[in-house]
């Protein structure tokens, strides 16, 4: 299958290893992966901050870049959710709205694409360690992604998926919210992480680089040895 990868600006600039791993995993799963060079951002920071004209401009440019893609795969639940919201940015009956609807239909979050479209679960990955899963809010509540990533992790050799009662609690990132309200953002995260140290885990895994930056940033500040990992990074490890 020909897959166009939208890595997201955050993965591109802050966590390229997640994108590199996604490419490896998709190739391993038999996909012909391309990276449309014109891509930048989906417009989510402006959309969530109420700056709609700017969100529209960036979304339009995204739509042009991916207009001819057969299938778009995104290693981020929140960017995939943003793409699903794109049609709401454009006027009824406009060419852009039509294009946004078509693109929304062929866009898939990374784990969902593997499990639901390709039907793969075991990709021959090996990762030695105890891992908890963090359900990113937009993946969980906008895209209803819950069992897929867990099934993928369960198949990873030597990986022990540890049950975490706070796995579906918000990490407090919320994009610009994390900078606008740093104290509330971290209070939310600390409440989520309360139980984590008692679980004896090696890593928190998630499908969103934003959540991982938030969780890792806090764990690092607290000098914790627990690391953050993108699902793709685990699935690409051998």
């Amino acid at each position, binding site marked *: 299958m020909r897959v166009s990868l939208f890595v997201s*600006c955050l993965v591109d600039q802050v966590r390229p290893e997640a994108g590199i791993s996604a490419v490896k995993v998709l190739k391993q799963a038999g996909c012909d992966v391309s990276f449309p060079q014109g891509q930048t951002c989906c417009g989510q920071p402006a959309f969530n901050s109420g700056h709609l004209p700017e969100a529209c401009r960036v979304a339009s*440019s995204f739509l042009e870049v991916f207009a001819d893609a057969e299938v778009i795969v995104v290693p981020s639940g929140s960017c995939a959710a943003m793409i699903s919201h794109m049609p709401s940015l454009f006027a009824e009956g406009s060419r852009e709205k039509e294009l946004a609807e078509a693109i929304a239909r062929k866009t898939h979050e990374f784990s969902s694409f593997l499990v639901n479209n390709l039907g793969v679960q075991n990709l021959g990955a090996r990762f030695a360690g105890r891992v908890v899963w963090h359900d990113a809010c937009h993946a969980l509540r906008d895209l209803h992604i819950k069992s897929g990533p867990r099934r993928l992790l369960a198949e990873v050799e030597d990986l022990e998926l540890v049950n975490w009662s706070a796995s579906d609690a918000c990490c407090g990132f919320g994009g610009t919210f994390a*900078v606008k309200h740093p*104290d509330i953002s971290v209070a939310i995260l600390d409440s989520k992480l309360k139980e984590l140290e008692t679980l004896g885990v090696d890593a928190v895994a998630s499908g969103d680089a934003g959540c991982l930056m938030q969780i890792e940033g806090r764990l690092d500040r607290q000098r914790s040895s627990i690391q953050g990992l993108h699902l793709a990074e685990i699935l690409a490890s051998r």
Partner: protein
Amino acid sequence: MKAPLSPERFESQAAEALNDTQLQDALQKATGLFAEKRGAAVDACEEWDSLREHARLIKEHTLLHLDEYLENFAAQAEASGVQVHWARDGEEACRVIEDIARNANATRLVKSKSMTTEEIHLNKALQVAEIDPVETDLGEWIIQLAGETPSHIIAPAIHKSKEQIADLFVEKLAIEPTTEVEELAATARKSLRRHFAEADLGVSGVNFAVAETGSILILENEGNARMTTTLPKIHIALMGVEKVIPRFADLAVFLRLLPRSGTGQKITTYQSILTGNPRPSDEEGPNQIHVVILDNGRTGMLAKAVTRQALNCIRCGACLNVCPVYQQVGGHAYGSVYPGPIGAVITPQLTGIEKTSRLPFASSLCGACRDACPVGIDIPELLLHLRAEIISRQSRLSARIAFRMWAWAMVKPWRYSLSTNLARAFPFLLPVGRWKVNRSFPGLAPNSFRKWWKDSS
């Protein structure tokens, strides 16, 4: 003296709440317990999703024909002997209630729990008119004694610990110090019974108003609303226009959703269905029944589907209990009568965005509120809608310039590469200062993904 709470000071009020360890403890326990009970009640209800959808459709239909259903309700209520009053805003509603009291020479007033009376600041208005209102819901009574405002839609004193309540009772009611819940409740009961017996007038809220029959419904667990509406000779019920539902049979849907969402109960201890019929003066029960129907900004929300959905709200408080922001900062931080996610979307619509523009931004957009809402309000969608409206009307120039520059950089890959490489060379250009207060920032990777792609292909 502390400055009064205001939605304009969300940030500082939230900071204060985060530093209040007692409050943190109370909030965590209470919201956790509510959310857990709600979860269990919802899980045990197989048809939950279809009930929610049914409720949403009833609300949507009613709101699209609101004028008709309100007129039907008023006509039915009047036919059963109720005096119906229409109030455009809070001030008008307060005046109506004052006038009823004045005409009856009533000065002693008991109240059962009603967020709508909080919304119109009825107690303050009554005190100015030299009428003495006594709250009879235990939580409301506690915060009235403490001179505070509710911090939760269904649990107004959620921010207070048992110990704080005991101290308050010792101070205000001169009781012997105790932290036994039974003794504290008995103290309240003793004091409240006297007020019930002496009251000339009872004011209640309304959970549902049935157009078909002119009935109003009040759900509660303490029996105080039953007493408020039956002991005094005059009963006044205040309702927002959105409380009306078409048919009596529709209650079969809402009465299953509301208690489960609010407290995790299958049914509240008391469900009072009041259908007019005032009694002659020499018999027991009120001889005057009034219903005050309040707009106060609600009809302004009817025009658009996105804003109209907020009028579906049945004030269960479920969205507060599951909200990560509310769980941390509590209700007072919002500085508005209605706190939490639903407060952040209805307050700006009821009172205008000028002084409430911070509220829609007080959310991580996690969507837990939308999942918990029993009447299908897409609160994140509304938050985004309000954010856009606020930004288009009053954004700071610096923010507008920043997002313009950002969009300029994002629409052309060469500009994107140029700016990200600039930020890589001069990391201070990245607007992440406040991130670093309490988290490490990884910085931009030495090599971007696109560079890897280019190099490896």
